């Protein structure tokens, strides 16, 4: 009889929960950003709470991975039963959704008292259509454990690196990484090379623009070849466990590496955890300048979204200068409106903001944007990883691989109908 009691209890539990699970009406905001526990808590507990207080609109914030989000949004569009009102995602993801005609144009939403940074504004218009409202921006920088300054190569000072000056070059990085390996016995420079890491961004947005001035346009050129020859040398001083790291904050905190490159959101935990130990520095420069990526995160509205007015109000709230400063202060994503830029937060994130500001205000900047390739975006990034694997790790013929990859890249841009950059 005990069995039946257990089954009875289970059934009771189910009914209690189903009664409890019936929900109050609100708008749904799905996002691939602000997932980490601390950030999500800030979003739900601070931002959306104060928005609800101000507007009377309750927002359910849902953390979905990109695949889940795309499946959900596509299915909703197909059935016409759209429940999601606002989407927060990276530029690249929104680009794909726009190419599948899932998003409505977001022109003419009332967004008073703010001026969006012009590059981001321009970037959010894809094929003549305003796809999203720029929400936040981020970039990739380097983090140095202060201990690593002991191993700086001759002629390069801390100030050169922090500022950054012309002396902070990829050659200097090579020498620095070499010194660290020789003096500590193990490589101390790390890159997030795991499949989920963002190493491909380093290749197409940092290395190649620094050597050639472009991400793909000058791929097959003398300087392009030099970039890969450089990687062949650098790889000897990269920590071998790099191929298992998706984010660099953990190896930095555990002291496995003293110098690393990664996305600001992925190194932030290290800085917040031990602000006295780390410094954020700009990336080095190459023969063509200091190449780096600016990542845009946007807010979009699905076609046929319910409660559009409420969605617009949420977009207005999230892009307001005061909200953007709060986000920088707590999360470390940078503002997209001019009124909020240049504000340096207090606390640990000050370190992050300083490094990023130094990078973005360096006069030799070569800004790279992740290209709008729609569904070809994955193939684009894969190409860089493949070349790295073949040329650097498997020592295949450099010129042959580079020429083949350059052709492929060109065809991807052509197929996507985007000018090569």
């Amino acid at each position: 009889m005990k069995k039946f009691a257990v089954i009875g209890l289970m059934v009771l539990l189910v009914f209690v929960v189903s009664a409890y699970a019936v929900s109050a009406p609100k708008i749904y905001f799905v996002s691939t950003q602000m997932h980490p526990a601390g950030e999500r808590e800030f979003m739900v507990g601070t931002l959306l709470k104060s928005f609800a207080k101000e507007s009377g609109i309750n927002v359910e914030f849902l953390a979905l991975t990109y695949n889940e989000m795309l499946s959900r949004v596509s299915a909703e569009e197909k059935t016409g039963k759209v429940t999601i009102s606002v989407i927060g995602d990276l530029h690249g993801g929104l680009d794909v959704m726009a190419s599948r005609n899932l998003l409505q144009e977001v022109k003419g939403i009332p967004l008073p008292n703010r001026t969006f940074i012009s590059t981001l504004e321009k970037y959010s218009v894809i094929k003549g259509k305003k796809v999203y409202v720029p929400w936040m921006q981020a970039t990739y920088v380097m983090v140095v454990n202060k201990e690593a300054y002991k191993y700086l190569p001759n002629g390069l000072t801390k100030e050169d690196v922090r500022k950054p000056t012309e002396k902070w070059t990829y050659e200097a990085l090579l020498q620095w990484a070499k010194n660290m390996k020789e003096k500590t016995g193990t490589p101390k420079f790390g890159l997030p090379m795991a499949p989920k890491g963002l190493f491909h961004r380093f290749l197409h947005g940092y290395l190649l623009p620094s050597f050639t001035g472009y991400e793909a346009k000058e791929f097959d050129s003398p300087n392009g070849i030099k970039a890969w020859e450089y990687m062949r040398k650098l790889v000897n001083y990269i920590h071998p466990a790099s191929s298992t790291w998706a984010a660099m904050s953990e190896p930095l905190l555990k002291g496995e590496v003293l110098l690393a490159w990664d996305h600001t959101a992925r190194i932030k935990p290290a800085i917040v955890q031990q602000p006295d130990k780390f410094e954020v520095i700009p990336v080095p420069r190459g023969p063509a300048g200091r190449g780096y990526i600016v990542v845009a995160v946007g807010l979009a509205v699905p076609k046929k979204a319910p409660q559009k007015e409420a969605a617009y109000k949420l977009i207005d709230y999230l892009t307001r200068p005061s909200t953007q400063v709060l986000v920088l202060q707590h999360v470390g994503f940078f503002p997209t409106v001019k009124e909020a830029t240049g504000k340096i937060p207090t606390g640990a994130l000050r370190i992050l903001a300083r490094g990023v500001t130094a990078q973005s205000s360096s006069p030799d900047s070569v800004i790279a944007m992740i290209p709008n390739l729609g569904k070809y975006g994955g193939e684009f990034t894969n190409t860089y990883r493949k070349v790295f694997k073949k040329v650097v790790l498997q020592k295949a013929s450099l010129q042959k691989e580079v020429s083949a990859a350059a052709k492929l890249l060109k065809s991807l841009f052509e197929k996507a109908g985007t000018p090569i950059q």
Partner: protein
Amino acid sequence: MDKEKIKSLLTFLIAGMISLWFLTPIIFITLSAFATSKDYYNPNYIIPRHYTFSHFYKLFFTLSAGHATLISLSVAALTILLSFLLGVPAGYALSRYKFKGKNTLKLTVLSTRMFPLMILAIPLLIIFMQIGISDTLWGIVLAHTTMVLPFVILITSSIFAGVDIAFEEAALIFGLSRSKAFFKITLPLALPGLAASAIFAFIMSWNEVFVASILTLQNRTLPAQILSTAMDSPDYYKFTAGFIMAVPALVFIFFARRYLVSLWGISLK
């Protein structure tokens, strides 16, 4: 005598090592889940010295993992209930009766597992939306039942095959009806195997992320609610999420274990 002693010592040693093998990760998950972040990253000690409930509180209350746990539990319970209601009779029929196309049927049952859920997800979601169960408990339960059912059918059919038909026949001779013979004789004998397939069904439903994530917005199951957050958070949050995910499953298995003599019903006789 000596030989006996060595034998029992060896048994203890091996059993101890196996337990250690399984318990060490659980112990480490628990310790790291409640360690302060400072201690967690301190390379000087393996076992943290200071503990905190703050990670747990954030995930469980602020980010509603608690609510999601309840939903996950009810989804798993309903999945077991539904898949047993459908799967046990099917398994019984497959093991007791000879009929045309039996083997084909067995294979067809498995064929639903040929397609990854990823591919089925969007059509499934579209159908669910059209019939209006896309954001409900029952929607996830149906999806999970579909996923679990083939296993329940196959496992229970081999369990019933292990229960000697002579017992049932004897019961019929002594005057029990067909259904009574099943409930009084066959079912109790098959209980260990059924417990095993219940555990199996529970774990499959409990761990499923993708379908649960896209089918629901409001009533999200535990992995849908916190998995992506945990994976993007610092390591100690991953352990906290792991702890929240593991404990209810362990408790369930602990209770179901009493009925579990052996999977596949081998030791029934």
